[in-house]
């Protein structure tokens, strides 16, 4: 195993910049999840690392070795493709054996490793079938197996669990995590599913429009998004983002929403807001919105839009002017549409972003503890 380093890598397709100066360091044995909306350049990044696409600019290192011009077969990486790419004419056994065969592994060892991998993935009974005779989920496991059967420098996985049913996905997630821990594998893992990123990854890289937005441990990305995009993308349901102007009310800093609502700011938050260009985006997660059935001073009046009981807790969608706001309440909380409800944003968990640059306005103590991470480049290009 070895680490993988991307230095300012760029990939252009004609006018389209699919990957734009991405720098990323995956330490040896680290599990890094690459997340981002569809078309943001995740697959392209993976293909660049694998050597299947030619870099427009930048460097890729495996361990300490520069591999920009190395042939894919000599990079010693294993890859799981988004659409499986199984050899249709070969049986499952031969699909799994192929990468070993190509590297001249002795027959006996091939057999042993194929059996062991098949066991891990519960596909022993499928070894004699052709890919066409498998379900999508089974094919995906074979594709995964073809990577796991080897002992490469690093694993590249492109949404390897996307086609499994919910139960199998949770199970495979656990298997993958265990596999990663047992052999200390270096993994670069693309996923749409934030749960996968949060549960498995040591670090999470958020991409958008070919640009790396933020790179850090999942909980840190969740708690301290560096810009509006990351704030809105990470977490489910997504963070509430409201546009507001910074004003003062009752001798205290406050936010005035475009719809006219007024919400006071704590002194610390007021100082942050003061650093903005005047307009801010307020970010607040559903579980940091306090609800009240009675009017309270300083609270904002809203109307109930819908109530979604989920069993563990209840999501309450509220109308605030023309915008919708999601809050969560305990499992028994109920209300009828158009009921009046007053809300307060938890001052300690309020995210403030400059409306113009869309960058986070730093929290004084957070900056001191160095919690807000993200490459300078990501911050500079995010706006």
């Amino acid at each position, binding site marked *: 195993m070895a680490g993988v380093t991307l230095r300012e890598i760029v990939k252009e397709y004609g006018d389209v910049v699919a990957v734009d100066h991405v720098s990323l360091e995956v330490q040896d044995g680290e599990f890094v999840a690459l997340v981002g909306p569809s078309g943001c350049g995740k697959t392209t990044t993976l*293909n660049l690392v*694998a*050597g*299947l696409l030619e870099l427009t600019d930048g460097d890729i290192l495996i361990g300490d070795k520069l591999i920009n011009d190395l*042939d*894919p*077969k000599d*990079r010693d*990486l*294993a*890859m799981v*493709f988004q*659409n499986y*790419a*199984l*050899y*249709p*004419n*070969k049986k499952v056994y031969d699909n799994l054996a*192929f*990468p070993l065969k*190509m*590297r001249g592994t002795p027959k006996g060892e091939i057999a042993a490793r194929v059996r062991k991998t098949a066991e891990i993935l519960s596909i022993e009974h499928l070894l004699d*079938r052709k890919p*066409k*005779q*498998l379900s999508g989920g089974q094919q995906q496991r074979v594709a995964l197996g*073809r990577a796991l059967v080897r002992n490469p420098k690093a694993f590249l996985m492109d949404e390897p669990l996307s086609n499994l049913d919910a139960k199998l996905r949770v199970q495979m997630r656990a298997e993958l995590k265990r596999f990663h821990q047992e052999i200390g594998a270096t993994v670069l893992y693309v996923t749409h599913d934030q749960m996968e990123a949060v549960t498995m990854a040591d670090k999470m890289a958020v991409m958008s429009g070919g640009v790396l937005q933020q790179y850090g441990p999942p909980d840190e990305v969740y708690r301290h998004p560096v810009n509006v995009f990351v704030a809105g993308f990470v977490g489910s349901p997504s963070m509430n983002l409201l546009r507001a102007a910074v004003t003062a009310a009752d001798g205290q800093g406050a936010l005035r929403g475009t719809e006219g609502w007024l919400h006071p700011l704590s002194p610390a938050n007021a100082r942050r807001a003061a650093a903005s260009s005047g307009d801010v985006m307020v970010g607040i997660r559903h579980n940091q919105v306090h609800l009240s059935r009675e009017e309270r001073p300083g609270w904002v009046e809203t109307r109930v839009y819908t109530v979604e009981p989920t069993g563990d807790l209840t999501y309450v969608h509220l109308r605030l002017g023309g915008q919708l706001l999601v809050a969560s309440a305990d499992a028994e909380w109920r209300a009828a549409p158009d009921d009046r409800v007053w809300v307060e944003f938890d001052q300690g968990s309020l995210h403030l972003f400059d409306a113009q640059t869309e960058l986070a306005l730093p929290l004084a103590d957070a900056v001191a503890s160095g919690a807000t991470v993200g490459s300078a480049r990501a911050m500079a290009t995010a706006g």
Partner: protein
Amino acid sequence: MALSRARVLPVAPPRARRPRPGLFASIVRHWADYLYVAPALLVMVLVIGYPVVYTVYLSFFETPPRSGDWVWTGVGNYTETLGSARFWDTTRNTFYWTVGSTALAFVIGFGAALVVQRQFVGRGIVRAILLIPYVISHVAAAYVWRWFLHSDYGLVSGTLLDWGVIERPLVLFDSIRWVMPTVILVNVWKEFPFVMIMLLAGLQTVPDQLMRAAKVDGAGAWNRFWHVTVPHLKGVILITTLLLFVVNLNSFTLVYLMTGGGPAGASQLWITEIYNIAFRSLRYGEASAYSVVLFLIMLSMGYFYVKALTGGGKSQRRPA
């Protein structure tokens, strides 16, 4: 009509237990389908069925050129044909020609397809040039090559003589030893573009993703070709070679115009021979018998041809 009929049929019992429906019942149920193909079927019967029957009938008669009489000889024409050394020589020539042409055209065509599939400057022009032999008529090709390779006034022979590469004229079409390789080469020249187009079309459908997977799995160029490209092209390869095989088995124009089957029958093929018997010697009965024999041979090969084509499809659709 057919649809409404299908709808009133009772629900079928579980598949495994149901006996196969009788042939007659099946025909009755699909009567409308037969109606649709009836016009085509009728034309086929007229232009194929009638001549076949007529030829088989004629093959039992002797038809002396000078009189209009037909004389019944029973299987005389057959015993004479199959018993002659000439028939077996021609058969050997025909298989030499067919196997040789098909194999060579396939190898060269495949190679050409692989080359022109790559990206390079002028690829379009190269592709177009390589297609020329295919679009030239057989007649033109035959005359051009005859002129090229003629031993006395041929371009090749003359040039080589002038340059002093050879001392005596290059005898190809007039040499019993060299005539077959020569006509086969011309035929390959004519046919390889067909293989090239067919395989080029196939090559363009090789999934990119599969090639990438093979690269990551450590497969070099040869292994990628062998483990990804060839399996993917299997169907196209099968169809192309079989089509070529059948076409070559029935060749006439090229050989007839270049050598007329000579010298001394050294390049005689089945069809050129039948042509000579029928329209030169005017022995229609014997030519008919000859044709019937070929018909039977080709029919049995056609059986394997169809089986290979449909069998390939069946194995892919086999359920888990």
